[in-house]
């Protein structure tokens, strides 16, 4: 069950962040960036689908990717608090993406190393999913880094919006790097990564981007936590109400 839980967590992050980004579609600051955010959203939702499908397969209870994605209760979703935060303005959105990609990319890369040589079918499938995802997340990281720098070092207004975004979102950056029992079990089973081991690289990367963007990392920030264990922010219930609407209103239908 550890493998199942571990995959679901990865997938939930992707689904919820992909869902948030999809809210921008048609409302972006200009067409090219509207399309870029939709692209990232499509990548993340695509990753979540592959992962839910894999989870459903190993669970062999006859669930589908949609059963897992749409029919759980709020506390059963195990995504980070970061990814469920509202889009806010474009500064918030690009910063949230930078924080997440700075965690997700080294995580996927470290997992790929661990999965090398593992021959069981579900590990091979996961490796395939991650190999494709690494290319996508490399782009997400570059896109968000460029925008954080551009906005941080753009106009007085864009700088001040970036500062506000940093002050509001930095407290959600740290949860990704705090391990719990699921992480520990996955590490001991050989495919999991201790998130603490990814922190130095991510911190250094953020530090470098912030320096180029003329932004400071807030001091003495208490890192909010809970999403990984299913204790979410108040935003989550509303997000799920929309996400689950059709499946709840028309149970057992095919679409």
């Amino acid at each position: 069950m550890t493998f199942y839980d571990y995959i679901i967590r990865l997938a939930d992050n992707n689904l919820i962040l992909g869902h948030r980004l999809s809210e921008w579609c048609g409302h972006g600051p200009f067409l090219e960036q509207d399309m870029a955010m939709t692209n990232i959203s499509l990548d993340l939702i695509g990753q979540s689908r592959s992962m839910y499908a894999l989870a459903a397969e190993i669970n062999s209870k006859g669930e589908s990717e949609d059963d897992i994605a749409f029919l759980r209760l709020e506390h059963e979703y195990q995504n980070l608090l970061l990814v469920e935060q509202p889009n806010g303005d474009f500064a918030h959105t690009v910063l949230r993406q930078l924080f997440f990609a700075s965690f997700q990319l080294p995580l996927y890369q470290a997992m790929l190393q661990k999965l090398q040589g593992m021959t069981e079918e579900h590990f091979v499938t996961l490796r395939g999913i991650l190999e494709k995802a690494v290319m996508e997340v490399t782009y997400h990281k570059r896109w968000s880094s460029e925008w954080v720098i551009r906005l941080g070092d753009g106009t007085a207004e864009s700088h001040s919006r970036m500062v506000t975004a940093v002050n509001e979102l930095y407290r959600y950056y740290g949860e990704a790097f705090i391990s719990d029992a699921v992480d520990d079990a996955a590490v001991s089973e050989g495919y999991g990564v201790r998130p603490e081991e990814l922190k130095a690289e991510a911190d250094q990367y953020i530090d470098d981007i912030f320096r180029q963007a003329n932004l400071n990392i807030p001091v003495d920030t208490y890192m909010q936590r809970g999403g990984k264990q299913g204790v979410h922010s108040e935003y989550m219930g509303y997000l799920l109400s929309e996400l689950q609407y059709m499946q709840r209103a028309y149970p057992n239908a095919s679409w």
Partner: protein
Amino acid sequence: MDTTKNLEEIFQSKIDHEIKIEPKDWMPDAYRKTLIRQISQHAHSEIVGMLPEGNWITRTPSLRRKVALLAKIQDEAGHGLYLYSAAETLGITRDQLLDELHTGKAKYSSIFNYPALTWADMGSVGWLVDGAAIMNQVMLCRTSYGPYARAMVRICKEESFHHRQGFEILLTLSQGTEAQKKMCQESINRWWKPALMMFGPPDEQSSNTEMSMKWKIKRETNDELRQRFVDVAAEQVKFLNMTLPDVVWNESTGHYDFGALDWDHFWNVVKGNGPCNKQRLDARIKAHENGAWVREAALAFAEKQKIRQQSQVKTA
């Protein structure tokens, strides 16, 4: 005077010989204006058209549908981009074009002023709205202005995919539960007549048709296209086991009759009195205004980078 006449003759002769008009060719002012109006209207329709479907992105019934809907709306953004670029070859900027949309000077297809109320509407929009649009657009792949014709070739390929995708949404509903079937028929009923009016007013009332036909901007009349669409849809609806309101086979004409269309209502929607005109325009203006600081920041940053590179070159 004689030179202009000569140029006009050369221009019309190219058109008559199916030679595309290109951006640097001489063209009559009215041809240029007609094209700017039509291409920009088309571009704006793509962009505003993202909104009714966008209304369902966060509520799709499955992940597969979510990805497909997002990709479709993203295609529409892409179409908007090609078309704005095609319009720019006629000597107008994207900023000017957007300004005309936001001030209400430029129009977009009135169909997007109707609300998307149920999931089935994602199917009806694809099947009926995109289907009607394709009838027009296939003809535009052969339009006389080169950049427009080439943009349309690519757009048409994607649109016919959207059209099939919409039909497939309805087909799934039509084979589902009673509630799904009901949702399907209700949606078709609501979109059918507005979709027919997408072809524009009847030929005898269409002010732009005659000149556009002579210049081969348009190649078929509103009524011809509309009838062809009705005949195709009337056959397709049989696969859904659904009906099209007021559509009856007419033995003597060999076509389907489609009943009266409410042109008073159509003109009201064009004039701004449709159910969602205000919401659609407000949403576009809001996105544009909320994005202003981002666009300004991107320009300011690019300017700074340029200065930095120049000073690096100097010091080197």
